[in-house]
């Protein structure tokens, strides 16, 4: 069973989703929680089986799909994808467990389980076509969640979300086809296998074009400035569960893909585009933080704060050294936990008051002290206080980029200032002051179902902030092999200079492993 654990992880939720149609609607919730819990424990088991000292791919499976064109079903994970998969299964589980939606619960749970398959699939796929299929499939459940359970503008928001990301993916698909074509030209055989692509050293001008094509797909997903405007609409209209999954997992697909595709496939282009991308990342950090500050709706504050934090992740990724990339991957996990928790927290108050306008609140700290405490912990994590999960990732990302450019890192570092400004202001508006609205005077504090989701998240936030090693070590080991691969492939002097040579003989080279 161990050798097929990844396939089980991918297809078990999908199978369960199909069986879910025949489950009675009253027991749908229990069914969903059970399936998601089994899936989550399977992913924990995967972690248990995972060897943290090996930097390469583990649990690889391969089966031919279209042999003539080199399209194979290849899955495998390393330290980078492992924890994002666990994050996905975890959030699906607590998302279903804390579901407060009452309309068509069964459909929603089936949709979520289907979505879970696509998420695990994306992060486990090592074949470009398989990756692409899961990547695109993930749009459909989310489209459905926003379109069917969303707010008044849900159709506009969901269509915008779908078309925008779909357009980006199409450009990415063209890039993939060209990549396969170049591979065919170079080796005489077709292949979409990522590990085989890693061995291909492309001339710089090819790299630049392909990098750009992949970039469009990834950047819209992240979303990077100026492609980010679909996100506020999607969050604004999506139900809580949709926002949680979107922010915690789906956005990470973009940044994950940068690490998995862009960096090792196109090291020279990555260096070439480092500063333009860093500029975009800094605009994301500062500009969206300002936009977040101007918001009147607390969910939009969290939505824009997501974009701002994703800017730090992108910056860390393009630091192109072990510190920066490890930090950015850790921050993906951290941001998943924290932004997911913040969206859940916004959901808590929305369920009670059916509004998200901050001007409707004020003084909630005295009415809902436990809610205020949990929100406070997550807010402090969001502003990157040391000993919370975010700090580790943010610090390493900025530290990494400081090596590449002092000025850029300094400007990007303003993230810790502007982040504090919008978050503290929002917190003050919601929780401090006196209770002015009659409706707020007798709000109920967080209940047990909500605590079920929020307390574990708070525990993780602090636990991994104090002791990040269990996650950071495998991540760092896998990142080392990517950085070494990039250095070995680098052709331009600029790239050879900027990508460090780790020269560590223990680092297994992915190139050799692909054989």
């Amino acid at each position, binding site marked *: 069973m161990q050798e097929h654990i990844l396939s089980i992880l991918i297809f078990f939720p999908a199978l369960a989703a199909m069986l879910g149609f025949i489950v009675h609607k009253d027991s749908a919730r229990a069914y969903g929680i059970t399936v998601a819990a089994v899936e989550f424990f399977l992913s924990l088991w995967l972690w248990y089986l995972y060897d943290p000292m090996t930097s390469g791919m583990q649990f690889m499976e391969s089966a031919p799909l279209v042999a003539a064109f080199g399209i194979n079903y290849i899955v495998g994970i390393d330290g980078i994808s492992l924890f994002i998969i666990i994050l996905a299964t975890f959030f699906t589980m607590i998302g279903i467990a804390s579901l407060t939606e009452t309309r068509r619960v069964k459909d929603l749970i089936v949709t979520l389980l289907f979505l879970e398959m696509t998420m695990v699939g994306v992060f486990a796929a090592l074949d470009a076509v398989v990756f692409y299929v899961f990547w695109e499939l993930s749009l459909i459940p989310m489209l459905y969640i926003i379109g069917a359970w969303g707010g008044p503008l849900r159709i506009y928001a969901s269509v915008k979300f779908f*078309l*925008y990301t779909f357009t980006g993916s199409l450009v990415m698909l063209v890039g993939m086809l060209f990549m396969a074509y170049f591979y065919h030209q170079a080796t005489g055989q077709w292949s979409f296998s990522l590990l085989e692509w890693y061995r291909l050293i492309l001339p710089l001008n090819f790299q630049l074009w392909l990098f750009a094509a992949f970039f469009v797909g990834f950047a819209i997903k992240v979303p990077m400035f*100026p*492609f*980010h405007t*679909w996100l506020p609409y999607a969050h604004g209209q999506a139900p809580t569960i949709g926002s949680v999954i979107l922010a915690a997992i789906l956005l990470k697909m973009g940044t994950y893909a940068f690490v998995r595709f862009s960096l090792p496939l196109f090291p020279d282009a990555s260096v070439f585009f480092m500063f333009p991308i860093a500029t975009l990342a800094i605009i994301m950090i500062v*500009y969206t933080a*300002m*936009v977040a*500050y*101007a*918001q009147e709706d607390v969910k939009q504050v969290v939505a824009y704060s997501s974009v701002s934090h994703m800017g730090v992740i992108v910056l860390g990724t393009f630091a192109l*050294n*072990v*510190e920066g990339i*490890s930090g950015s991957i850790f921050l993906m996990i951290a941001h998943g936990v924290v932004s997911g928790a913040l969206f859940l927290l916004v959901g808590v108050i929305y369920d009670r008051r059916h509004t998200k306008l901050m001007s409707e609140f004020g*003084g909630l*700290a*005295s009415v809902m*002290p*436990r809610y205020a*405490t949990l929100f406070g912990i997550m807010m*402090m994590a969001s502003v990157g*206080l*040391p*000993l919370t999960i975010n700090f*580790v990732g943010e*610090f*390493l990302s*900025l*530290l990494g980029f*400081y*090596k590449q450019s*002092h000025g850029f*890192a*300094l400007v990007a*570092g*303003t993230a*810790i*200032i502007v982040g*504090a*400004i919008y978050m*503290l*202001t929002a917190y*003050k508006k919601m*929780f*401090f*002051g*006196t209770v002015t609205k009659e409706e707020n005077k007798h709000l109920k504090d967080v209940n047990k179902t909500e605590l079920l989701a929020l307390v574990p998240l708070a525990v993780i936030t602090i636990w991994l902030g*104090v*002791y*990040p*090693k269990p996650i*950071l*070590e495998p*991540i*760092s080991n896998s*990142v*080392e092999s990517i950085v070494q691969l990039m250095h070995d492939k680098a052709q331009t002097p600029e790239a050879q200079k900027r990508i460090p040579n*780790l020269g560590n003989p223990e680092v297994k080279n992915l190139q050799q492993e692909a054989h």
Partner: protein
Amino acid sequence: MEIYLYIALFAPLAGSLFSALFGASPKTSVTGMVASGLLFVSFMSSVVLLNYVMAGHTVHVEMMTWIAAGDFYVPFGFVVDQVSVVMMMVVSVVSTIVHIYSIGYMDHDKGFNRFFSYLSAFVFSMMILVMSDNFLGLFIGWEGVGLCSWLLIGFWYHKESATWAANEAFIMNRIADLAMLVGIFMIYWNIGSLQYDVVFAEISNLSIPIVTWIGIFLFVGAMGKSAQFPLHTWLADAMEGPTPVSALIHAATMVTAGVYLVVRANPIYGLIPEVGVAIASLGAFVAMFAATMALVNRDMKRIVAYSTLSQLGYMFVAAGLGAYWVALFHLMAHAFFKALLFLGAGNVMHAMHDELDPFKMGGLKKSMKVTWILMTLASVALAGIYPLAGFFSKDLILEVAFVEQHYVLYTVLLLTAGLTAFYSFRLVALIFHGNERHLKYGIHPHEAYTFMLYAMAPLAVLAVIAGMVFKTPYYEMVTQLLPAIEYHVHNHTTFWIMTIGTQLFVIAAIAFAYKKYAKAVRVDVKVESGFFYQLLYNQYYIPKIYDEVFTKPYRELSKVAWKQIDLKIVDATVDGIANVIYRTGEKTHTMQNGNLSSMLRWMVVGLVVLLVLAIAFTVGYNAVTMRAM
């Protein structure tokens, strides 16, 4: 010894967590008792460690790994050496006293349990700050105390002014923290470690410009926590918090963290004396700048806060001039008498039903005799009268400036000493002497609980003896780690003229303050409407300027960024492109009208276009490849 280190460090955390368990429930005295008891335990462990260190040992432990990625490695490591043990003593003594005092002070507050949870958490953070053996560990404490400061300034969160001040303090500190982070980045990429021992051993191998930048960035970090100009405005506003908080955080401990950083990083600053002089100059400027604002202020707590700011300036003068042990000594002495002053102010506030304007008080020495004595004692110590603590620590800084031949700094500090004496005794005179002006507001003051006064007593003792008794053993201990430079004015005549002159000057300032304020208070309209009075009264208009130059434009700019740029430009462009495509589809769908002949015609058009394109591309491609060959 390690066990004592861990007890000293984690006892406050245990107290905080214990109180947090009861955070949302109504007052339970046990939280205050347990938290105070655990702090006393922490204090006793610190005493044990002090003895150990005084015997010439140090304790260094590495608890566990914190962050490790690639070559980057930072553990949770703690060190108790000559410098950190001094800080530990200061922190544990003052915090234990403040905790016990708070049991009385917060007696009627419904957030009693929450208060102790925050206060003990603060002590824990402060302990991490001073005990860490690396820069990132220090940064944990640095941000931790910032968080607790935010929680405690905004403790009465229903007050708009309190929460505003809390946010201001946090954000302003964050600005400085960025510089500190950059300093840490520089250290890491140049040395490859953040451990103090490695960094200090290697720092002299770096080029001077790099060391200079490291020194500058770390100092900017220190400026935030220690509220140095131009990041000073938050400290006065932080007085919105409960008074014990002001005593512990905003007088004795947290605000001195910046001084501690400079003292701790003395091997860095020792290499760059120019930066040191800049630090000293800024310190002297702040000393006077803050003292002038204290002269006219009408808020008891703000006066003491400006006084703190001014004394921090003194400490930075000493640290900047390389007299690290002097800076640390003044830090310690100041912690004792300033905490005492604040706690006394707390008693007055309680008696006065939270009235802060000393002009509405007077003659309180009748009803609050002990508080009067304690506050006078603290003020004498602050003014630097022999033989109290301030004389030994503050006048020493004057001597340092003189011996190092920075006569401008010396003059500024001397004048400031006069101002300090004046505003301190202006406050004492207004509160405790003269007519009982509060009677017309219907306030009948009463002395604080006896146990609160007993709690304050150790501080009074320390304020009296800290200079006389501690100076020699302190010097012998810390100079094992810090540069041992004795500052003596060699010429005896000069020494006596300076010492006695300073004393007389200070006494004259005190006498003047008593004369002006101890009897009847006459409001001199002409002076008060004058430019200088207004300038000082409005804190040089700096808060206003910050509001106009930073806060409001940022708010406006944010609105523009959202409403104009994000919605009207970025998003509208995306929708525009989508609309163009959509309309093209709408308009061209008539082509597919099902009429065979028209569709055939379109097909021919398409074919021709494709052919032309194909030819053009082939020709173009060949031309390019030919040239390439």
